[in-house]
Structures are given as C-alpha cells and as structure tokens.
C-alpha cells in the first residue's frame, strides 16, 4: 500500500516534470526566430572556435560589429563550441557540408592537415598579400611557409610564442632555502641541474610537506631539450644541421644521455618511485609536494603564469637555444571554410583581428567600462571592470587570446606580465630557424609503420623515459630493435625523401 502510494507520487512527479518541460518547449519558438538584424544587407561571417559561450557574448558581438561593419563591410557571428565538443561538431559540420566562414584549426584540435586533405579549408595564399597586407607583412616568409601545405596557405597564423626554449622551473622559496640561487641562474645545461636537485632532495627530507624534488622526469627526454626539431616524435633533425639529415631520435647520443640521466636521477630518489601522470603532477604542485619541474617551456611571463596556476612563486631558466620550428609556428591558426560564400571577406577579417588592437582586445577581453578598465593605459595594463574580483566574474572572459589573433596586441591583465609581448616577439625574431622550418610531412604512405611506432613507444620508450628500466643500455638496445622492427627506417627514408624534395623546390 505504502509502496503503491510512493509509486503514484513518483508518477505524479514525472507528470509535473512533463508540465514544466512543456514550458521549455515554448523556448523552441524563441530559438527558431532569427535575431534582429541591425546591419541589414551586410554579409555575416560565422566564426567557429572552441570555448564556453560567454554570458555577455551578444553585447561584445555588437561592439565588434560596429567596428567590422565600418572596416570590412561585414558583421561577424561568434559561434563558440565547448572544448569537449569542438572536434566532434566541427568534423560533422565539415562532413555534412554545412557552411561557416572561419574556424580555429591546429595540429592538435580540428586537425589542420586533415582539413586540408579533405578540402574543408580554402587556400588563402593568394588572397593574404592582397587583402591582408599588414598582417601578411607582420611575419617573415619563413614563418608563413610553416603553414604552407602543397604550395598554398590554408590558415592565418596567430602570432604568439613560436619557440620552445625548454628549461627547469623551481619554487623560489625552496631555491632560497637551499641557497643555490646563483647556481640555478647560471646553469648552462641539464648537468648543472643535478646538484640543485640533490640539494632540494636533502631539503625535502627535512620538510614535512615537500616529499620529492620533482614528480616526473619524463619531460627531460623530449627531443626539443636537446636541440632537435621533431618532425615526428621520434624522427628529428638537429637544429644546427643545415643538410637536414633526418635522424631516429632513440638512436642519438642525446637520447641515450637523456635516459641515462633520468635513470640516475630516479635512483637518487629525485622523483617518486611510482611514475605519475601529468594531472597528478599538477595536483602535487598545488599541494606543495614537489618543487622542481625539470623541463618545461621557459618564456617571458611564464613565471607569473605558473604562479597563477599552481600558487607558488617560481624561478626558471631556459637551457635550450630557441628555435623556430614548423610545429611551433602553426600551433594556432584560423582557417577559412572551403564552402564559405565570402572567402575574401574572411581574409579581410583576419587582417582586422590581427592588426587592430581595439577590435582584437574587444574580442579577447570584452568592452571597456563593462568588462575591463584601464589600470595603466600607457603600459597597456587592464583590470576587471566595476570592482569585480577577477576577469572571470565580468561576464565576458574567453581567456584564449592566442586563439583569436596576434597576442602581441593583447592588453596585459597582470602587472607581472607587462613587457612580456615585446620580449616574446624578440625571442621569436632572434631564434634560429630550424633547417626544416616550413616543411610538413605527409604520412599517408607509412600509416602502418606510424601506428607500430606509437605502440613501441608506449611499450619501451615510456618506461625508459620515466627511469624505471633497470638496465638502461639493454633497454635502449631493445627499444631500438623494436623501433627497427616497427619499420622506423622506412618512415625515416620517407621523410628524408620528402625533405629533399622540399629543399629542392625551395632552391
């Protein structure tokens, strides 16, 4: 009886929910109605990018359109798709032939090369110099060549840090406690890091919270640490090698040295004996259990960024000469959809967003007086508007400046950042160009080998890179044999022949 009553009550609840849902249904009509057009007759450019929909996006869009209508004779529609959905939705949109004008693309999300192969992106190499002259002139030919595939450019490059000067980060308070600040700041190679790690470990033994010097040694085996440009993870070209000989990374002396160092440091107890995931590593930082990140990108403003992320003041030092690589340059691109009705306007938009600081910052930070106010206009430093505690509380904070355009035009949001952009631009400008800058590899002939190599990598290279393999020399030999069996030489020869053809075409 009691049971029956409860059940009926439950059904009643469902009925009520259905009634409530009926109200949501009226929301359908609202969605179907097109938004009122203020700029009638002007074409609208649809811009797809990953990110959460911001509360105030309509207001920001209006502010952007006021500029865009006048400057390029078009309005834009910002279509943010959540990070987790972007890859799926954009690939469905592409496959079904749905039109959009601009989309964020990169080798790591909405894959640039797949989009080119499937002809989802329009070639804009001829349009750029004509319709986006200032933007096109703001980067060197070498840089633009990095985005070139089969002779054409399929995406506008966002200027940001192109180089990856790797080096260690250390918590400033720990560095001070062990009294090795001078030693840290004068390091020239990873070998110099060893005594510092030893001192941190000693300090950790007497400290309650700090458990280990670092949590993960694997980043030390990344090829960029040793002056290579990785065309693929294990197929690299030495930055100083003008003849551009493709090498198998695991066969190089540098890799052997890296894994030997990692094993030695592992045995010395600088990292926990159970290998940790990256996510756990972040948690360990936040909890104050570790004090060193052995190898990460050291960039202007990087210390402030890490401090914001992990809550600790840090000191860092780059140990690798910065190098311009294809991968670094094309990490962030905005492409023009191949079914776009207005590709010329889309390229004009790229000019606008990359060269007009007001337009760009409105897109990145919102409207002055509504979402941000000047803290110091001369320095280009802003603060959240209306006494909001952080930019996250202002109603518009996509927080992805690097996705929209030239970050060197972005306003600073933290005093410690001031000056980071010219410094970064300087770093990019003075960096050595990789001998294969502008080369992109087409792996379609060696798909099977690439899959086997990735399996071998997980089975043999990852354990070596984390220091758990007891006999490093034997482990290295096994790894290299497995790599040979997986067909890595075929891949190397394929890359080499493509590199040679690419070099010949440039000469």
């Amino acid at each position, binding site marked *: 009886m009691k049971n029956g009553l409860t059940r009926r009550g439950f059904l009643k609840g469902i009925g009520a929910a259905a009634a409530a849902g009926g109200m949501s249904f009226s929301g359908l009509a609202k969605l179907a109605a097109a938004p009122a057009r203020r700029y009638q007759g002007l074409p609208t450019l649809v811009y797809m990018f990953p990110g959460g929909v911001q509360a105030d996006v309509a207001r920001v869009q209006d502010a952007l359109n006021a500029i865009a209508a006048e400057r390029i004779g078009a309005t834009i529609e910002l279509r943010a798709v959540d990070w987790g959905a972007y890859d799926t939705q954009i690939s469905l949109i592409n496959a079904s032939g749905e039109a959009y004008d601009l989309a964020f693309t990169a080798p790591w999300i909405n894959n640039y090369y797949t989009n080119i192969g499937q002809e989802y992106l329009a070639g804009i190499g001829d349009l750029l110099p004509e319709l986006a002259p200032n933007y096109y002139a703001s980067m060197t030919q070498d840089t633009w060549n990095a985005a070139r595939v089969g002779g054409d450019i399929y995406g506008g490059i966002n200027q*940001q840090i192109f180089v990856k000067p790797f080096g260690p980060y250390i918590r400033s308070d720990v560095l001070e406690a062990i009294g090795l600040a001078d030693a840290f700041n004068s390091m020239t190679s990873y070998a110099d890091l060893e005594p510092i790690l030893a001192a941190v470990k000693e300090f950790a033994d007497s400290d309650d919270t700090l458990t280990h010097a670092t949590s993960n040694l694997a980043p030390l085996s990344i090829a960029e640490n040793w002056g290579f440009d990785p065309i693929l993870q294990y197929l690299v070209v030495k930055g100083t090698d003008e003849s551009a000989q493709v090498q198998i990374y695991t066969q190089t002396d540098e890799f052997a040295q890296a894994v030997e160092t990692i094993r030695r440091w592992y045995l010395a107890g600088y990292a926990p004996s159970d290998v940790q995931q990256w996510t756990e590593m972040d948690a360990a930082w936040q909890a104050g259990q570790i004090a060193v990140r052995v190898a990460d990108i050291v960039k202007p403003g990087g210390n402030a960024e890490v401090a914001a992320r992990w809550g600790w003041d840090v000191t860092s030092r780059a140990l690798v000469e910065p190098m311009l690589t294809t991968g670094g340059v094309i990490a962030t691109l905005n492409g023009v959809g191949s079914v776009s009705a207005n590709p010329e306007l889309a390229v004009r938009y790229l000019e606008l967003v990359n060269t007009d600081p007001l337009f760009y910052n409105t897109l990145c930070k919102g409207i002055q007086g509504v979402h941000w106010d000047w803290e110091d206009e001369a320095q280009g430093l802003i603060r959240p508007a209306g006494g909001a505690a952080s930019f996250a509380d202002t109603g518009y904070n996509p927080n992805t400046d690097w996705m929209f355009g030239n970050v060197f035009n972005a306003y600073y949001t933290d005093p410690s950042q001031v000056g980071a952009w010219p410094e970064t631009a300087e770093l990019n400008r003075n960096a050595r160009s990789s001998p294969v800058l502008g080369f992109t590899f087409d792996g379609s002939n060696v798909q099977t080998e690439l899959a086997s190599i990735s399996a071998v990598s997980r089975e043999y290279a990852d354990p070596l890179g984390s220091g758990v393999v007891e006999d490093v020399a034997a482990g290295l030999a096994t790894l290299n044999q497995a790599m040979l069996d997986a067909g890595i030489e075929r891949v190397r020869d394929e890359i080499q022949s493509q590199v040679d053809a690419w070099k010949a075409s440039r000469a």
Partner: protein
Amino acid sequence: MTTPHQQLLARRQRDTDLLLNWISRFSLHLVIIILAVLCLIPLLLIVSASFTDEIALTRNGYQLVPSQFSTEAYALIFRNPGTIVRAYMVTIFVTGFGTIISLTIMSLLAYALSRPDFVLRKPISLIVFFTMLFNGGIVPYYILMTQYLRVQDTLFALLLPYFVVAYYVLILRTYFAALPAELIEAARMDGASELRIFWSIALPLAKPALATIGLFTALSYWNDWTTSLYFIRDANLYPLQYLLYIIQSNAQAMQLQATVGTINMGEVPTQTARMAMAVLATGPAALIFLFFQRYLVRGVTLGAFK
C-alpha cells in the same frame, strides 16, 4: 510415549539442524554482504572524496572517511546554480516526456506486430529488424537531423533518437505475442474496439514488460550525452550528463593546450569537483532504479515461466 532420552536426542537433532541451518544461512549472507560491500566501496569512495578538501586528497589519497571535510567541491559546482538546475530540468523533462512517448509508440508498434492477423506484419517487422543490422552511420544521421528535420539546438534533437528502439520493439512484440489469443478474441466478442483491446486488455497485462522497457528507455535518456554532443550548441539545452562531460572535458582540453598559451588554470575544476559531479549525476538515476526494481526483476524473469 517417548523416553526422556529419546526426547533429548530429538532436541539435540533439532538443535544441530538449527545450527546447520543458521551456519549455511550465515555463510550465504556473509558472501552476499561481502559482494555488496565490494560494490558499495567504490561509490562510497567517490562520495567521500567529493567531500574532502582538495589538497588533503592529494596528500592523503582516497579514504572512506574524508580526512579533512570540505564542501568546497559542491560550492564550486553550485557557484553557478542556474546552469546545473537548468540541466536537471532538461534531463528530467527529456527523461519523463521521452519515456512516456517512446513507450506509447513502441507498445503500439509492437502490439500491431504481435497480432498474427495483421496484414503488413512481416514487411514492417523486417523493416524494424533491418535497422538493427544496418544503419547509415553518423554523417547521414547528422545531415538528416540538421538539414531535413532541422532539430539541432532543440529538445526534439534529444528526444527523437530513442522514440523507437528496434530491440525493445522486438522484446515487447514477443511479450504481446505470448498473451493468449482467446483473451483478445473474447474481448472482441464483447464488442471491444481494437484500441480498447489494446488499452484495456493488452497493456495492463504487459505492465512488467512495459516497466522494464520503460526503465531501460529512461536510463538511455538519463545517461545520453552523445546526442547533445552532436546537435546541441545552446548551453541552455544541455542535459545534466552532457554538462558534466563538458565541464570535465573542458578541464582536460585546457591541460592539453596549457603549453600553447596563457591559460588561467584557476578555473579548472579539481579532482574533488569531478567526484562531486559524479555524485550529482548518478544519485537520481539510482533512485529511479529503486522505484522500478520490483517490476524489473519480474520483467526479466518472466520469460522463464513459460
């Protein structure tokens, strides 16, 4: 007449029986209790972790009793309560309304297919069965939904995919077919219309089957997030599971591209918040299951009686 000695023996026998009975029961219960505990511990760990302080969780690891009690994770999720309440509303509506409509359509279809005197029985059964073996794949599905039906960014997009599930139709058809033909014949003799026979005779008898299929359908609606992944861009129409997926995957995406540019990791939900999300998502589903459990057990075992 029994001697005291015989009485004693009998009582001993009884005691031994009782003891044996008790031991066998106890050991059975013990096994089941251990199994139940094994199933419960992971759930309890999640609940406990969701109430643990973030830093304490990293330092002490997962524990059954929070090492340092904190409701910070729930505060983080409910910092923007509108979003999660809306997502609950969407999910509850889609689950409730969708299940009712889907049961109506599927039982009507299954009943018609179960009647031997229905002329189109074979061709329609074939069509239903055919969709179980072959389908167009994701891109035609997407094109159909967005360019022909134009349901993207509406609740219809969430409802449509589970209105008719071929497999459930076949189960229901089998169930209806097992009802005695004489019952239907008798009803017709009494002057009942087809609809009336369906409504007053077939449906009440099929309650256990309907409850089982209803539960399955409700769970499909409740747990579905892929449909939203394909068709929903309007954050106001996010169902609960998809909202949780989005929160989670946004955090992963940010970690993935942390090296690309300046990212404020302060916004990323923490380990404890993930656990809190899991608790919020599974809690209500578990409740629904409790309500339907009785029917479910009956429905599942029903085939065995024949």
